[in-house]
């Protein structure tokens, strides 16, 4: 049964003197417990699709359903409990004047969940950060440390669906491995569903069952994991992406 259904979605921004057609008629479905990947050109609308699900982008056509039900606008309390997003820009999701402790504790307070101290420390440990980071501010962290706080924050409410926008793009190989392993383990243990964006096809291949390749706001080609691994793509753009990535692997 499809958990997330995106049906002919269009998103149009009004940029004052013109309209930006960021997403044009994209459809995809993600089944419960599945992991679905979005890849494609920079500026092709990947982040906009995730933001549209969260009610953060102006939908101009089509529909988004979760569990077969259209989403309410604004998204509300229950949505936050079920769906959490890790933003591409970790700074954007971390309040500059709040300590990491406050950032992680806040969702618990809003949703009246207790046991705050233990949960905050555990969340930091889960993403490989020492509890001593609790009382730092975002600007006192490295780029990768900030990205991990953003992931920890999204996990605080134990959501069922995670929207992950380049969750490991600021992380080195070792921390990326740990973070991907954590995400995979949580998905197996808690039966999570992922919709994730990455420009790294190897990461997408490692994490996702199916992928959608995007370019200029449109869906170009959908592939399952075997097709991706075998390089069995039909469109020129998907092939270009694959070849450019495969070439990086030659000596790796």
């Amino acid at each position, binding site marked *: 049964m499809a958990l997330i259904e995106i049906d002919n979605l269009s998103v149009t921004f009004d*940029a004052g003197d013109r309209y*930006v057609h960021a997403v044009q008629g994209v459809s995809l479905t993600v089944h419960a417990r599945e992991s679905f990947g979005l890849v494609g050109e*920079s500026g092709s609308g990947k982040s906009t699709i995730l933001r549209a699900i969260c009610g953060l982008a102006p939908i101009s056509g089509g529909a988004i359903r979760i569990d077969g039900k259209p989403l309410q606008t604004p998204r509300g309390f229950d949505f936050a409990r079920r769906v959490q997003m890790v933003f591409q820009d970790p700074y954007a999701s971390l309040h500059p004047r709040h300590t990491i402790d406050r950032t992680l504790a806040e969702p618990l307070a809003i949703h009246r969940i207790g046991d705050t101290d233990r949960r905050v420390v555990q969340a930091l440990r889960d993403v490989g950060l020492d509890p001593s980071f609790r009382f730092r501010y975002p600007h006192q962290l490295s780029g990768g440390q900030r990205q991990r706080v953003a992931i920890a924050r999204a996990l605080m409410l134990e959501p069922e669906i995670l929207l992950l926008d380049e969750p490991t793009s600021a992380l080195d190989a*070792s921390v990326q*491995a740990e973070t991907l392993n954590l995400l995979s383990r949580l998905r197996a243990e808690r039966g999570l569903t992922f919709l994730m964006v990455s420009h790294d096809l190897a990461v997408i291949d490692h994490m996702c069952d199916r992928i959608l390749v995007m370019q200029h706001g449109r869906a170009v080609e959908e592939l399952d994991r075997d097709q991706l*691994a075998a390089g069995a793509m039909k469109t020129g753009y998907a092939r270009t992406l*694959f070849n450019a990535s495969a070439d990086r692997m030659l000596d790796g």
Partner: protein
Amino acid sequence: MTLLSVKDLYVTFRTESGIVEAVRGVSFDLGRERLGIVGESGSGKTMTGRSVLRLIRPPGRIDAVEMTFDGIDLLKISERQMRALRGKRIAMVMQDPKYSLNPVMRVGEQLTEGLRRRDGLRGAELHRKAIAALEAVQIRDPERVLRAYPHELSGGMGQRVMIAMMLIPQPDLLIADEPTSALDVTVQAEVLSILDGLVRDRGMGLIFISHDLRLVGRFCDRVLVMYKGRVVEELEAKHLMQAQHPYTQGLLNCLPRIGGDRGPLPGLDRAAAWAG
């Protein structure tokens, strides 16, 4: 010829929970070449880069035996002289480009600020230069992007705007902190070839900070591998894949592969002894 020389650099922060030594005794020389800095998250790559521009905010402090750029003692010159170097002769592409851009100023105004102030350009010529700078980094819709605010850009577009902006004054030294981490492979290749051209044709020095070992191995001439604030290995980039240091080897092993088995990725056995 040495463009930048750094000897025994330390960066320390006094925080409520004690002293953080972000960089501990880093030394390197840079010629008109591509020097990669790789290493774990939090290993001090960004702080090393920012130190060269003396962009460490208090209470952080920089100590070094030497930090010389083209004969200029970066440790001694006044803040005013430093400001004259920044952006113009030494530029840095920040790791969080959207955060480093001014959120309430249109991209075009920020991009052309130097051209207007320093070079006195106006009107059609200014516009033409700005469009060309954006087209060079593969921005599809440069007219719109000039009029956009930073929040209206995608992650990778923000990164490319930042690169375009830093390259306009034709710096002698570019410090690029994860400049392509949000770019797909095809756009990334274009951006790298611009940087490559500037090093080869104009003799720019490039410090390329990245966590992407394969990319650095292909793109750079030399690589410093950092771990916990120290340089633990320095090698020719083309030998990166045969790195000797267990930490560097460990990093290479953690990478996922297309068509891999999808089992848990090998982690890194962090031996404290490496960093000393």
